[in-house]
């Protein structure tokens, strides 16, 4: 199993969710985060003074998937979140040693 961690633009969430549902991946956890990378924050102007906001609001998605579904998931997320502009985000893939569904105690792929 893999844990896919994606940092995306907040307004692409619905699109990603739809794509994931489209390929039958039906579990997702979302966190509000802030980040920077190539895209460098922005400026807000108040009373004539410029304020540098170092970080941009982003969403972090976590999706645990069986090994076989990793490519589908990556593709769904990429398609849903790509706008072609700087700041589109990153996807990270981590190895997931174990997964467990609290309610039933099931473990492994079936728990996802």
């Amino acid at each position, binding site marked *: 199993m893999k844990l896919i961690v994606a940092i995306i633009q907040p307004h692409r969430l619905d699109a990603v969710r739809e794509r994931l549902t489209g390929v039958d991946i039906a579990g997702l956890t979302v966190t509000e985060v802030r980040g920077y990378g190539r895209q460098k924050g922005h400026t*807000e*102007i*108040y*009373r*004539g*003074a410029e*304020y*540098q*906001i170092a970080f941009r609001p982003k969403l972090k998605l976590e999706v645990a998937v069986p090994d076989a579904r990793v490519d589908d998931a990556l593709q769904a997320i990429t398609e849903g979140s790509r706008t072609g502009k700087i700041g589109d985000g990153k996807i990270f893939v981590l190895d997931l040693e174990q997964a467990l569904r609290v309610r039933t105690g099931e473990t492994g792929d079936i728990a996802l």
Partner: protein
Amino acid sequence: MIDSGDTAWVISATALVLLMTLPALALFYGGLVQAKNILSVLAQCFAVACLASVLWFLCGYSLAFSGTGAWIGDLQAALLGNVTRAGPHPGLKIPESVFVMFQMTFAIITPALIIGAYVERIKFCAVLLISALWLLIVYVPVAHWVWGGGWLAQRGVMDYAGGIVVHVTAGISALVIAIMLGARHEFPHGIRPPHSPWMVMVGASLLWVGWFGFNAGSALSAGGDAGMAMLVTHLSAATATLVWMAIEWIKFGKPSLVGAVTGTIAGLACITPASGYVGPGAAVLLGALAGGVCFLGVLLVKRIMQVDDALDVLGVHGVGGALGSLLLPFLTLLGGGVVLARPLADQFAVQGTGVVVVAIWSAIATFAITKLTALTIGLRVDAETETVGLDFAAHGETGYHVNR
């Protein structure tokens, strides 16, 4: 003789002016700081309001409004011992108690205005000490000079609702404290944006509404003077807002909400001294000027002087109040204005004297008060407290517990 209509309006106006400090100014200032300092700003406004009230009771009112001295009143009315249940304030048709209370709300908001200069880095006990001394050493005498029959009143200075007494004193003192206290660590390049622009807007809206009490209430009666003061107050605020928005739109490509409401406050501060003396056309003109000049005032202090008068007390209030005080003789000439008691040039000279002398006195006295505070209890929190935020450090509380 008490007039029930006059009394009804001045009581209502008093409620409106209290609303200006609690919660309007507190929200206006609180929304402009960072989330970690929101409660400290509210606590400062609240504590200053209470402190000023008790001092007003003890001797402030008496020193400002009792007696005939040129420089300061007397202590005849200390502890408000002379306030009877029914007796009118001399020359007015409202009870003395109402006059005392109405003026108290002015004594509350003026030191509270200064809070904008020192937020996010000052010690809470320094706020209390400075505000108490400042009320007695700056506000009370100046109120006596201008409204209590003192030397400026004798020369015929015109300051309807406090362009000089409130805004010039607060603005200049804010600058002095800001310089002596030093800038916030992140100033000028790492300053964070207002943590809650909606809160700023709500504060500004309530200030606007409350300002009807401030300016129209200063008529101390319910008639044409109050009505005209309300009308011109409103028009100046609306015009200044539009002008500030237009400037931002042209200069930065977008009109911000925080900018718009800053324009409003500039327009309100500027019309304050003139509100009982000018007509609607003058108000629109003054509002337009307020929007432009105070915009520059803010830039001057923050960008050119590089002083961290954090929430622009001088740039908005000080500049606005001075501008209105100086222009008002000219503006009475437009339709709906009063007839001046002396030649225009003379009146302008008196206004200029008032603004300048009060500014100088405010600066000197505030310097002394702040120095004294620095040498005794200290002015500024340490660097770590500043970074962590005053809410937890000074009050043991956290602004937002929205977590589940």
